[in-house]
């Protein structure tokens, strides 16, 4: 093994000019059966959630972006580089945590992570140093000299994360990272993913069928259904767009109040003795509601936005089936 390092420096790609992932009519077919169908979209988020029911094509999309499967038509670009022509260059900036158990037998954890770093091109010394750092980062510092065969499922997941980040990639694909983890381990894993995201040093693509994981980690989501991209949105923007839906809890006679609201053009629905749902018009502000309620001698005890949860977004996407 050469100890002398070549004077190539990694030139990290910047996502200022290019989207993280640019899908251009990407299709993948296996044995004549379409698995991904003409996916289009520019994904730019720091953390992108890949959602979809089982068999929707999430893992196939990740594998295609990693160069494991050749697109049957169309292509994709990662940081502006074409997955068809620049696969080897792209892999320099990518980290991948597979869904299934994936190890090299008869190795201690630190040896395994170091080996992976060396395969990514790090010189032996730097690889060993970074392997230790990555293992401390994921919380396996104390267990790093243990053989991987003796690890629990949760520890194996952490070791997989360590090998995915050891070479400091700019884009990390995490395929079902919380699979098989107990609640505390899941919380730790989510915390680490958020730390990586918040460091601003790497973009993350998180594939999961657990909406909660995606909701806690991601800013943007891509929802796949039957190999088609049915939704691509920014979760926060989607929620903001739904800020005009209000739920009020009141005391007093509701009739004069809802009548006034109706007069100014707001739709309403009474949801019980003291509850009313409102859809505000563009020009109506929340403070106007308080003023009108005071005039109608109604107390507003609680006012909450009826925000769409990720589950709502997901279910809508599953029902509509279109972008």
């Amino acid at each position, binding site marked *: *093994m*050469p100890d002398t*390092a*070549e*004077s*190539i*420096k*990694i030139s*990290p790609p910047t996502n200022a000019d290019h989207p993280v992932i640019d899908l251009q009519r990407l299709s993948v077919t*296996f*044995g004549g059966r379409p698995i991904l169908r003409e996916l289009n979209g520019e994904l730019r988020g720091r953390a992108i959630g890949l959602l979809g029911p089982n068999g929707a094509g999430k893992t196939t999309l990740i*594998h295609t972006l*990693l*160069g*494991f*499967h050749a697109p049957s038509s169309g292509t994709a670009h990662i940081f502006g580089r074409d997955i068809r022509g620049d696969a*080897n*260059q792209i*892999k*320099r900036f*990518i*980290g*991948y945590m*597979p869904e*299934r*158990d*994936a*190890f*090299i*037998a*008869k190795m201690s954890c630190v040896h395994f992570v170091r*080996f*992976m770093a*060396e*395969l*990514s*091109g*790090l*010189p*032996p010394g*730097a690889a060993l*140093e*970074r392997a*230790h*750092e990555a293992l*401390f*980062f994921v919380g396996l*510092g104390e267990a790093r000299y243990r053989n991987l065969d003796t690890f629990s499922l949760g520890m194996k997941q952490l070791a997989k994360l360590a*090998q995915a*980040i050891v*070479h*400091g*990639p*700019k884009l990390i694909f995490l395929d079902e990272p919380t699979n098989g983890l107990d609640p505390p381990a899941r919380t730790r894993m989510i915390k680490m993913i958020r*730390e*990586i995201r918040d*460091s601003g*040093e*790497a973009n993350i693509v998180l594939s999961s069928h657990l909406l909660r994981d995606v909701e806690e980690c991601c800013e943007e989501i891509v929802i796949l259904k039957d190999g088609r991209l049915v939704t691509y949105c920014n979760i926060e923007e989607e929620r903001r767009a739904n800020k005009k839906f209000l739920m009020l809890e009141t005391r007093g006679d509701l009739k004069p109040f809802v009548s006034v609201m109706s007069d100014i053009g707001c739709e309403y629905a009474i949801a019980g003795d003291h509850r009313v749902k409102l859809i505000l018009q563009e020009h109506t502000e929340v403070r106007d509601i308080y003023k009108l309620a005071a005039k109608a001698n109604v107390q507003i005890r609680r006012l909450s936005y009826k925000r769409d949860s990720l589950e709502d977004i997901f279910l809508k996407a599953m029902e509509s089936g279109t972008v």
Partner: protein
Amino acid sequence: MAVLERTYKPYAGTLAPEWSRFLIIPRDALRDVFRSKIFSGLFALAFLWPLVCAILIYLHHNVNALATMQIPLRDLLSIDSSFFRLWIIVPQGYLGFFLAMLVAPSQVSRDLTNNALPLYLSRPFTRTEYVVGKMSIVIILLSAITWIPGLILFLLQSSLEGWSWFSANIPIASAIFIGSLVWILLLALLTQAISAWVRWRLASRAALLGVFFIPTVLAGIVNEIFATHWGDLLSLQWLIWNVWSGLFGEYQEQRFYIDRNGVEQLGTALNGPPLWSCWLVLFLICAACLALLSRKVKAYEVVK
């Protein structure tokens, strides 16, 4: 840089040269292999025979030693191409086969069983580099016991015999190198292909033995029944034997035969099927092994 630093950091240092990355695989595999005392012992024993050969070569040139041991020079083997082929390349080649059988069968199968291929191939590391890396485990080990000691013995003989012997017998050196390399490449490809398709280590060792010895029996039967040499093409053992003989210039032999007029004549006869056919079959076997490897060495198999 502190080891205990617990933040995510990109790597901004230099990279190892791309051409050398495949060597990471044999480096780690060899470290693992030599942890076994049995293997280390066998590997050390593999150098015993070349040592005996070195003593034989030395005795050839030391009249005093022969006189002391009361061995007449004519009773010693002559140091020529037959000596290098039959006493060095053939025994060392067979020993190499058994070493390869111990080391190679688990190399690819272990990665396939543990789903390690996605980890390799998601990095700037190609399938070719993976296969070359795995093959180089066998190549390095077997080189150390075949052509390297063979060439050292050739140089020893040359140094004792003189420059004229060296220049007259250069083809022996190239035969040692090429013959060993063909054998090593064949073994490396075959063991990796078997390892990729037979995941159970014992079964893959048995398959390797079967691939070498069962066709040899078949070849013998075919040769006997049809009174021919073409059956040799079925047997890897005979193929490599013929190729070695060809490389050492010993494939043809002088034989007496009866011509059309019933007169006994001295002529040249082949010891087997034409040499080109042996090379061709070896080439086809290597191509088949590569095809088998290419079907299995993938990040993920697509199940139809």
